[in-house]
């Protein structure tokens, strides 16, 4: 995002600013709470317990190769990257309007900072997942696999996807302030249309199963679960995951760049 001024923005400086913004996000997220950063681990853990408790009786765990608590938690923390990125990014440009109107800071940094904060939160959630795995391992319900380290191959794809969507939404929100309400509904729908608690087979509906393939989050969640089971995803899966990620990133980036000049005038 270069400016017209000849003073080219230095990448290292921008990286430093990004780091400060991410740290600020994380701090503010858990600022008021008593146990602070521990919440980032506890929160997904407690959520998972509730989900496992509620859904294990509703859907039953037959047909799921993975231990059910792990199945629920793994889906949720992957989906959580996208959810946290976009809900944080949506209002971020409007919230920073003071700064954007009065300083010539690069506009893309704010949604980017939100996505990286979501990644940090994912890191903590991952610890929660490992704790659960350890418990299930001792209960004899789960066996660790080496493929789990391949998560680092999956993450860039999700990050690209989240970045693109965050750029797009944060810019659009400047123009349409009711997007917040619309998006929260869309996000709820999206949550239920992604097999986080259930399996596609449990739907007993081929049509929805085909439709599900258009949902990028389905692929990301599936990829992650494959790793936990101990399967290396196929080349096709990789192409799909990165295809969605790169496409979304390009769309978001282009959109934000085109409306960038209107944003400062509009805020």
């Amino acid at each position, binding site marked *: 995002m270069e400016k*017209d001024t*000849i003073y080219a923005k230095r990448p290292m400086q921008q990286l430093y600013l990004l780091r400060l913004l991410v740290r600020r996000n994380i701090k503010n997220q858990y600022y008021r709470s008593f146990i602070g950063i521990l919440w980032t681990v506890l929160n997904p853990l407690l959520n998972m317990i509730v989900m496992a408790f509620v859904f294990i009786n509703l859907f039953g765990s037959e047909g799921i190769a993975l231990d059910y608590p792990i199945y629920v938690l793994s889906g949720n923390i992957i989906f959580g990257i996208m959810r946290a990125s976009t809900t944080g990014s949506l209002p971020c440009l409007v919230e920073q309007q003071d700064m954007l109107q009065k300083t010539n800071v690069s506009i893309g940094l704010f949604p980017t900072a939100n996505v990286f904060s979501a990644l940090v939160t994912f890191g903590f959630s991952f610890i929660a997942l490992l704790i659960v795995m350890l418990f299930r391992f001792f209960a004899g319900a789960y066996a660790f696999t080496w493929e789990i380290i391949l998560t680092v191959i999956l993450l860039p794809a999700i990050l690209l996807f989240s970045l693109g969507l965050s750029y797009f939404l944060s810019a659009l929100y400047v123009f349409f302030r009711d997007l917040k309400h619309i998006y929260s509904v869309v996000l709820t729908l999206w949550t239920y249309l992604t097999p986080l608690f259930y399996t596609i087979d449990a739907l007993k509906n081929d049509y929805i199963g085909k439709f599900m393939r258009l949902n990028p989050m389905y692929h990301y969640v599936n990829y992650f679960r494959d790793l936990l089971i101990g399967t290396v995803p196929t080349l096709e899966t990789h192409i799909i995951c990165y295809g969605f990620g790169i496409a979304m990133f390009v769309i978001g980036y282009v959109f934000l760049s085109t409306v960038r000049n209107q944003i400062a005038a509009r805020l």
Partner: protein
Amino acid sequence: MVNSDSQKEVLLEVKDVTMNFTRYEVGVDSLKELVVRAFKRDLKREKFVCLKDISFTVHRGEAVAVIGRNGVGKSTLLKIVSGILKPTKGYARCYGRISPLLQLGAGFDGNATGMENIYLNAAILGYTKKEIDEKLQSILDFAELGEFIYSPVKTYSSGMLARLGFSIAINMESEIMLIDEILAVGDMAFQQKCYNKLEELRAKGLTFLIVSHSDVVEKLCDRAIWIERGHMIADGDAKTVFQEYTQTMMQPSETGKS
């Protein structure tokens, strides 16, 4: 007094800058409204010329005041110069490091301490950690916040916030300072201190572009640009332009013809 000599290095070049804003007559800022109004064919757009063909250059070491009534586009001009807004036509080029002081403490984070905000704010202004570390002591000395620097800034009074903001902006090294009517903050003692600091920087050879009407600015600047309804109507020696401006403002009936 006016630096018209062309030998001096040009630091800031504003050429034929025109700024148009397109506005819906009624502010449309939600999807619902856009859809409803599109159906009712009630989307009147209005083009609004904010600045028209503004050209001027500022040389190194000059201090230029921008004056004019409220709402004639002075702040927009400063935003264009600092690169926040892009002009519809023309360009504004800076050949040096610019430090926009358009609002003190823009982007302060209430939950963070004063110290953390120094780093955050300076990083937003475009400085690296090393550069900030070097300037930290002079920022702290100038702000005179004592132990409060380790408290969250949401506990600060507005005067203290202004002190901190001003102190950060003024102490970071830059070649051009853009200042938008921000000096009317803090108590008298601090205001005096700010003006002294500005004069000190001025003596050091820094370049200023200031939007303000106060007498002190008249003394600080050697050149003034007068903008009326988006047009530049005077550019010259500060004293002369300020005098003309004051005279015109005293006779409201005359202003319409200018």
